[in-house]
């Protein structure tokens, strides 16, 4: 309850005082958190390492932009359209590779990302590397903006924060419904013991596809939000590696396979990387990927520290220590 209140009230003081930058940080936290929830479905529950989810982010962004440019579709309809197109593409390209397991699957997802890059840079329909520009038509009021995703000047940060909050909450509710449904149990059965799951009649290939399509839908929605925020879609921006690594990092730092894990992870990570961007700003180390070095180190420490079981920072142990109960859970080697 308190968390919800904080989330709703968060941008208001900044809107008052004019520090709109912090509203953008909030927007990025929510966007990363929802993408992390999406990645958690394939990575955490279904146990498949997807290193190229940004192709669905790009698909969503491009679909909504094309619909807005050529057919003047409303942004929310574009969002649904982008999700639908992403899910269809995801199902078509994922079903073949579900025969592959472990590293084989992971590399296939990288291969798809690598194939998407030249397509994004050369396809005439989406204007190649020249990119697409979404027609600007600022709305009169904030409320009207919530319906069109186009806000009057100063309201943009605030508007996109609440847009992202709405989509984030819907994603969270959707993911919770999936977690408790038949699908959620099937995903985890496939992760824990694929052969065993097949033995009791779960079609592991089908449910890997379903899990990746759920993720694709979430990434597409995120891509649409991003494209209307940036008002443009460029292939190297929507296919950037950050849209792969940040959701994955958020899920793992907060606790893989936990519903709220990516949310916790995003709240920790995004301010850190924004802070680094801000402090390194004009210095000699600006734009040198320092945040990615730190992410890489965190990944290696987490993986090396607990190679068995689901990846996470040792939240349980830390919480236990804070409560004075000593280590809650011994680290397994």
């Amino acid at each position, binding site marked *: 309850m308190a968390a919800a209140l904080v989330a709703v009230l968060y941008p208001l003081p900044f809107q008052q005082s004019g520090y709109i930058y912090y509203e953008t940080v909030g927007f990025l936290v929510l966007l990363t958190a929802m993408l992390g929830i999406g990645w958690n479905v394939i*990575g955490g529950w279904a*146990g498949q*390492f997807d*290193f190229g989810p940004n192709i669905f982010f790009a698909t969503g962004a491009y679909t909504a932009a094309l619909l807005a440019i050529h057919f003047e579709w409303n942004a929310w309809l574009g969002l649904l359209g982008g999700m639908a197109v992403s899910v269809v593409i995801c199902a078509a390209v994922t079903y*073949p*590779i579900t*025969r*592959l*397991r*472990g*590293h*084989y699957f*992971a*590399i*296939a997802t*990288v*291969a*798809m990302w*690598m*194939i998407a*890059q*030249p*397509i994004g*840079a*050369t396809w005439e329909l989406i204007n190649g590397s020249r990119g697409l520009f979404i027609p600007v038509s600022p709305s009169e009021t904030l409320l009207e903006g919530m319906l069109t995703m186009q806000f009057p000047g100063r309201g943009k940060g605030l508007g996109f924060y609440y847009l992202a909050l709405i989509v984030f909450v819907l994603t969270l509710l959707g993911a919770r419904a999936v977690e408790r449904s038949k699908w959620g149990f099937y995903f985890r059965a496939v992760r824990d013991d694929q052969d065993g799951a097949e033995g009791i009649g779960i079609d592991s290939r089908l449910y890997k596809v379903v899990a990746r399509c759920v993720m694709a839908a979430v990434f597409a929605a995120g891509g649409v939000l991003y494209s209307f925020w940036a008002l443009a879609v460029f292939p190297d921006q929507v296919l950037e590696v950050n849209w792969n*690594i940040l959701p994955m990092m958020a899920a*793992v730092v907060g606790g893989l396979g936990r519903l709220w894990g990516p949310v916790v992870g995003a709240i920790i990570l995004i301010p850190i990387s924004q802070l680094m961007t801000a402090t390194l700003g004009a210095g000699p*180390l600006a734009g*040198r*990927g*320092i945040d*990615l*070095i730190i*992410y*890489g*180190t*965190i*990944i*290696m420490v*987490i*993986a*090396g*520290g*607990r*190679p*068995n*079981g689901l*990846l996470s920072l040792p939240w349980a142990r830390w919480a236990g220590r804070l409560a004075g109960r000593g280590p809650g859970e011994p680290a397994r080697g």
Partner: protein
Amino acid sequence: MTLLLQAVADGLQMGLLYALVAVGLTIIWGLMEMSNFAHGEFMMLGMFGAWGLSVSLGWDPLITMVPLAVVMYGAGVLVYRLLMQRVQRGEIFTQIFATVGLFFFVQNGVVAIFTSDYRFIHQSLLTGLSGANLTLGPVRIGVPLLVGGLIALAVFLALYLLIDRTDFGLALQATSEDRDAAMLVGIRPQRMYAVAWGLGTALVAVAGVILVNFFAVYPQAGLSFTVLAYAIVALGGFGSILGTLMAALVVGVVQSVTAAYLPPAFKDAFVFASYILIGLFRPRGLFGRF
């Protein structure tokens, strides 16, 4: 027709270089069954090493091959001892994740030191030959690439003899087939894994040193070579050294022929698509041992 023949000839020469890029992964992934998303990053480190020594000390890249191979061997052993040894018996997922972390760490470490600028080597023995051509009927063969390919082939054959004909190679293969049985006959598996990581890393770095004569040096050079290497190892039948060579030649030719007839941006796309297809239809690879 001449275009096709020329493309095939170019592709075969590139294939020899790709074989050396991929064979390190054949050892780590194919033989030892560990994942390594940072494979191409070690190649990139080799390229930067050769570039750095060439710019600062004026050494020719071909001379830097030996010291860089030794250093990168040590780096590979270190990566195994500090990181991979811990995750080796854990979940596959964790193993992939660990090497993805390594990938980000290495790539951006280099970005932090050298920035993402493109760099080239201007003077080296091989680039000095750049005007020289051999003419074979309608096909012209550039001497620099040919020499680079032949050096790669020589290293490759030495590795083949090492793995296939020596006691050490047999111990490596024994560990790959049955770790516990290997222990029973006195082989220390962890030492074998460490050596495999050292060898794999040194080999791909040497490939980078040769490639530095033909490609730009920049921190993001690695990932597409990682996927290329995975495709070649999968095509070559996981752990078969000669299979890797054949597969690399095939990949080189596919890439060069598609580049001749399609927009050049797509030259890798077909290779990556072939990885997916091979995984589906020939899970043991085109040249598998089984």
